[in-house]
């Protein structure tokens, strides 16, 4: 038995490509000051967002983004069949507690920083399979919650190496439906876990780049496309280091992406002015850049077809302390204005 919607070895092609009806983004002040600041729906005044802890602030950002996307589509929470969400915190508490508030049937996901694209791929399968009508997918991350969980307390006086990335504070939500106006998700290439043997948690770009390249190449092979068939190929949060490595690795396999390949981690900050070293990272990095900037580009007609690859470093402080390396994953989604 072959699966009728699969093409090539590992890509799915949707027979009725789901439509991205609306997107919403909420970001912190630093992201609001960045080069894409104007593309976000809401910029919070401070990192607490009126809450008493950063974890609660992250959760509230996620809730706001979801409420906003449902409002934009002129729907009500009851109209949403499934809510898919994830974040970086232990037990994905931002997503779980946001789902508690929202009261929509919920599937929690963890794909580290690749969760936005992972959730869009799964949501598309659910819709194209006829299992749901309206699906909301959402992610969040927060600089301070991520720092204290993965690295050091924020007031600790340590020096960040040049390869370190800055976790984006924010949340993004995407509402998908079988019909409507907006760009459509035509294909999804599910990522493989690729471990390049990198052990430095301050160098996630190098840890993730091979996984992203693996997914991009499989997408080209399965769809029979080449880099020129996409107006934009965009990875989630490889940063400057990972972007350079990915470009080189693709070059080695005879794919020239020098003209149309970018990375959300590079796009979101002004690295000289904002002191973000190698770039942005976190679930919200690829999430808010897609929900804000890239959706705007689709609506302006600047891009017609893009391959987005959400990249995740499957980092665990416990595993690192036990001498393990950091595996990476990249989920690819093809979005097209038909």
């Amino acid at each position: 038995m072959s699966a009728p919607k699969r093409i090539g070895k590992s890509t799915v092609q949707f027979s009725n490509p789901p439509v991205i009806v609306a997107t919403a983004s909420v970001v912190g002040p630093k992201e609001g000051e960045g080069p894409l600041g104007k593309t976000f729906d809401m910029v919070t005044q401070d990192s607490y967002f009126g809450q008493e802890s950063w974890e609660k602030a992250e959760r509230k950002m996620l809730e706001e983004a979801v409420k906003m996307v449902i409002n934009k589509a002129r729907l009500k929470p009851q109209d949403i069949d499934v809510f898919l969400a994830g974040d970086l915190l232990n037990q994905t508490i931002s997503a779980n507690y946001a789902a508690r508030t929202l009261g929509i049937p919920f599937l929690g996901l963890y794909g580290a920083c690749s969760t936005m694209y992972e959730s869009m791929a799964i949501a598309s399968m659910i819709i194209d399979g006829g299992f749901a009508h309206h699906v909301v997918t959402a992610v969040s991350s927060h600089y301070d919650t991520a720092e204290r969980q993965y690295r050091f307390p924020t007031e600790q006086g340590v020096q960040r190496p040049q390869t370190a990335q800055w976790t984006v504070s924010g949340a993004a939500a995407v509402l998908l439906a079988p019909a409507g106006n907006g760009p459509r998700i035509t294909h999804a290439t599910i990522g493989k876990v690729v471990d390049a043997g990198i052990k430095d948690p301050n160098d996630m770009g190098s840890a993730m780049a091979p996984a992203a390249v693996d997914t991009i190449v499989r997408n080209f092979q399965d769809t029979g496309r080449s880099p020129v068939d996409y107006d934009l190929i965009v990875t989630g949060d490889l940063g400057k280091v990972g972007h350079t490595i990915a470009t080189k690795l693709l070059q080695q396999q005879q794919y020239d992406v020098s003209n149309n390949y970018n990375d959300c981690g590079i796009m979101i900050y002004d690295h000289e002015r904002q002191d973000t070293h190698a770039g942005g990272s976190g679930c919200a990095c690829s999430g808010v850049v897609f929900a804000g900037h890239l959706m705007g580009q689709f609506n302006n007609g600047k891009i017609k077809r893009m391959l987005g690859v959400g990249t995740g470093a499957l980092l665990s402080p416990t595993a690192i302390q036990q001498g393990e390396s950091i595996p990476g994953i990249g989920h690819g989604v093809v979005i097209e204005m038909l």
Partner: protein
Amino acid sequence: MANNKQQGPPKKPLTLTEQVMQQKQAYDQKAYKQLADSVKPKNNVLVNAINAFWVGGTISAIGQIITLMFTANGLPPKDAASATVIVMVFLGTFLTGLGVYDRIGKMAGAGSIIPITGFANSIVSPAMEYKREGFVFGVAAKMFSIAGPVLVYGFIISVVIGLIAYLIS
């Protein structure tokens, strides 16, 4: 890997294919590491060293001035040293509370970690951070998460040195 020497059933010998796969993976990872290292931006060692030197030196100079002020006002040298430590720990704590010490540390690196003000910073920063998890399992339990190893090995070394001193004398 290197670490799974303890429990578990004895390992089966690898088949030839598995061995080849493992070696290929190790080779690929090594080649990849070389590529990644060639791309990574380098830390500016000279600038960092200069910053560490002058910041560390300034902190030490401030400590020395405080010691001299105590001795000038009649405190015996040994007590003056203890009093200086107390003042420096206070300063480190105070600057951490104001959110200034992490900025100094970002620029100076080891220059502000090594002096006792850095030790104060490493205790106060988790204490501040984990206040929201309560005073027992938050502040008190997490306070030594970074300074703890320093204390443990500091105590062990001092005992060892004390024993050596006792045996020699």
